[in-house]
């Protein structure tokens, strides 16, 4: 397993390093896509944000990460994305080579048209064809030539999803991707994201503050509390909706673990 010391993330991309996960063989079926062990991260010397996180995500598994603000959800996601250069800490991380990140803001470059944003950074060749296909998949066929500011918030986020998926990631990291959308758009985006993930089967880590969203979307919900994994619950719903009889108890359990009292839930 790649050992991570200091601010470096042990991404297995560097050829000099040994196999990132101990005993990993190419094509090993049971191998988790993400493996995190004893991850510590702190923004200054005294206060630790992550205090020993252990986490496995299986290939194709959809994991939602919830927790109160400031519990390090985003810190964990950024560590997996390799974006935590200036953060102190140690621990072991192994992630696939192909990682895509979806941010809360769509982060489309305003000076590139939608299609150019989607294929941004892809090697030429069939990039345009794949980009168009990805846009069609997220329901934006015909908007290839639009400027980002001409799209609605939901459409911008769809374009950003297309930009992530066209890279065929083995791991999709999403940091509150629907946080800035209105409630109706959000419901549509939930359906779209599930559909896309079932089609492309990346492992997914979705950071959200919305317990309902976590339950409806994820195969597993992980609760971060005090810098460690406080709960790790498999979601077993027959239908992915709030109408499922399993929904309410799970929601109550998670909210309680988040410190929301029953009275507050009822209100």
């Amino acid at each position: 397993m790649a050992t991570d010391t200091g601010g470096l993330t042990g991404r297995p991309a560097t050829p000099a390093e040994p196999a990132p996960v101990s005993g990993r063989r190419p094509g090993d079926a049971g191998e988790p896509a993400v493996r995190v062990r004893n991850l510590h991260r702190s923004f200054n010397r005294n206060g630790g944000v992550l205090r020993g996180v252990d986490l496995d995500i299986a290939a194709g598994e959809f994991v939602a990460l919830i927790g109160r603000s400031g519990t390090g959800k985003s810190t964990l996601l950024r560590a997996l994305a390799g974006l935590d250069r200036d953060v102190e800490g140690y621990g072991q991380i192994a992630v696939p080579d192909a990682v895509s990140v979806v941010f809360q803001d769509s982060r489309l470059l305003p000076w590139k048209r939608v299609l150019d944003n989607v294929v941004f950074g892809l090697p030429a060749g069939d990039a345009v064809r794949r980009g168009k296909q990805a846009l069609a998949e997220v329901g934006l066929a015909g908007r290839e030539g639009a400027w980002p500011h001409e799209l609605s918030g939901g459409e911008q986020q769809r374009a950003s999803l297309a930009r992530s998926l066209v890279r065929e990631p083995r791991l999709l990291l999403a940091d509150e991707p629907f946080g800035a959308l209105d409630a109706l758009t959000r419901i549509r985006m939930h359906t779209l994201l599930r559909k896309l993930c079932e089609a492309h089967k990346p492992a997914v880590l979705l950071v959200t503050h919305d317990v309902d969203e976590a339950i409806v979307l994820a195969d597993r919900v992980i609760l971060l509390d005090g810098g460690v994994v406080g709960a790790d619950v498999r979601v077993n719903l027959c239908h992915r909706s709030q109408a499922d009889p399993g929904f309410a108890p799970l929601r109550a359990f998670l909210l309680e673990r988040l410190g929301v009292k029953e009275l507050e839930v009822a209100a």
Partner: protein
Amino acid sequence: MTATGAIQTLSVGRPSTVDSGAPPLDARVVRRRLGPGRRIRFAFWVGPVVLLAAWAIGSKAGLISPAVLTAPWDVATAFQDQWADHDLLGDILASLERAGLGLAFGVLGGTVLAVTSGLSRVGESLVDGPIQIKRSVPTLALIPLFVAWFGIGQEMKIVTIALISMLPVYVNTHNGLRGIDGRYAELAETIGIGRGEFIRHVVLPGALPGFLLGLRFAVTSSLLGLVVVEQFNATSGVGHMMTLAEEYGQTDVLVVGLVIYGVFGFLADGAVRLAERRVLGWRRTLEG
């Protein structure tokens, strides 16, 4: 209403009870527009045409005496005379060559320095200080030094114009570059592109609004520089023509020179603004 079947549609369409006694007026406050509003056709030409008209009417009515400012038609005659007998076209081309070459070197230099100092901390520490010091020394004050270094020929003139037009490009491009949202850099990192592609697709387009603003200042600066350097031992150029006119007391020819400089500046600025509108189509601003 517990079961879905019990959901009743309470009202369809618009509410029927509008107070029948109320006058059917638009009782809203229609807001005053705060932005500049719609584009005016040929807006670019309105100001200059008004100025020209004021000049013509003033001269005709005798409000502007010819000793103060030559009348437009006399300037036109002087223009014709210079064009036919004194190779005005050659002077104009010589001036344009100087200003154009100086501007090109200045813009190139300013852009390269701005990208160097905007993207690397080492570059910034080496480049930014000297440039800020240079900013506080007027380039025109350096001309005697340049004369000593480069002589009084074409080189000195082009170096002066280049230096004078480099500064606004540097300052505004650097500013635009540093103003690029850091989140775009983060996105580029997650996408895994190299530094070259980052510069091409994120840095340069992001700094373009600043660069173009700098370019507008640079164009006018280069003409300012032109006016000054052409007083130094020029044997051709609009400035040369004006120096001669000054010696012979030909006010009308002086005004011809001034008008040519003005037209240069006006057209060059218009060209940059047109380019701005073309290239910055992605922006949503008051410009509209």
